C-alpha cells in the first residue's frame, strides 16, 4: 500500500486533535502551551504534505510552514514570559486559580 496525501492529512488531524484535547483539559499552563505546539506541528505536517503532493514544483506550502514556525517561536517566548510573570505574582500557574478576569 503506497503512502498518499490522505495518510499525512489524517496524521496531521490526529496530532491537531490531541493538541486540542490537551489545551482544553490540562490545568498546568505550560502543558497548555505544549499542547498548542502540538497543534501547530500538525498544521505544519498538513502544509508540507499539500506542498509535496499537490504542487511539488512550487514550494509555497513549505514557505507557509516556515512562517508558522516563526510565529510558534514568538508565541512560546511571549507565552512563557507571561506564565513566569503570573507565577511571580500569584505563586501558581494552575489555570483554575488564574481567575483575575473571570466574573
Amino acid at each position, binding site marked *: 500500500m503506497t503512502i498518499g496525501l490522505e495518510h499525512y492529512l489524517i496524521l496531521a488531524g490526529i496530532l491537531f486533535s490531541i493538541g486540542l484535547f490537551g489545551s482544553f483539559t490540562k490545568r498546568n499552563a505550560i502543558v497548555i502551551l*505544549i499542547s498548542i505546539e502540538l497543534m501547530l506541528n500538525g498544521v505544519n*505536517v498538513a502544509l508540507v504534505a499539500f506542498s509535496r503532493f499537490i504542487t511539488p514544483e512550487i514550494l509555497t506550502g513549505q514557505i507557509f510552514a516556515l512562517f508558522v514556525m516563526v510565529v510558534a517561536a514568538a508565541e512560546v517566548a511571549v507565552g512563557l514570559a507571561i506564565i*513566569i510573570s503570573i507565577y511571580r505574582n500569584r505563586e501558581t500557574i494552575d489555570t483554575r486559580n488564574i481567575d483575575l478576569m473571570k466574573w
Partner: protein
Amino acid sequence: MGLAVAFWILAAIIVAAALGVIFLKNVFRAALSLVVCLVAIAGIFVTLSADFLAVVQILVYVGAISVVIILAIMLTREFTRGSPFNRLKIPAFIITAVFFGFVAYAVLGTKWQISTAAPQTPTTHALGELLFGPNGFILPLEIAAVLILAVIIGAIVIARDR
C-alpha cells in the same frame, strides 16, 4: 516501500509521543515526550522530501523551543503538583472526537488532484529564491522580522523583575 515503512514507524512514534505529552503525570516527562514527537515530525518532513524544513524543525523546535519550555518548567516549580486534568475531560473528548470526525470525513471525501511531478531536492536554493527573489515572500519575511523584534522587547518587558 521503504518510504511506507518509515511513514508508519514515524506516525506511530508521533501519535504515541503526543499522547504521552497529554497523559504523562510528570510535566518534565511530558516536555521530553514533546521533544520525541518533534524529532519524529522532522523525520516526517524528510519523507516528504522537505530537507530544509526538517533541519529547521530540529534547530528551532528541538534546539530552542523545547529548551525554553524546560527552562520555564524549572523556573515555575509547578511540576511538584503534576499535570492534572480539569473537569472538562469528557465534554472536551466529545468535542475533539467530533472535530476529528469532521476532518477525517472531509479529507477522505475530497478528490485531491495529486500531481505526479517529482519533488525538488534539495529545496534550500528554491526556498531562498522564493523568500528573497522577485515576486517572492520578501514582505512577509520583513514583517516576520518586525514580529520577532516586538516579541523580544515584549518578553523582556513582561518577564522583567520590577
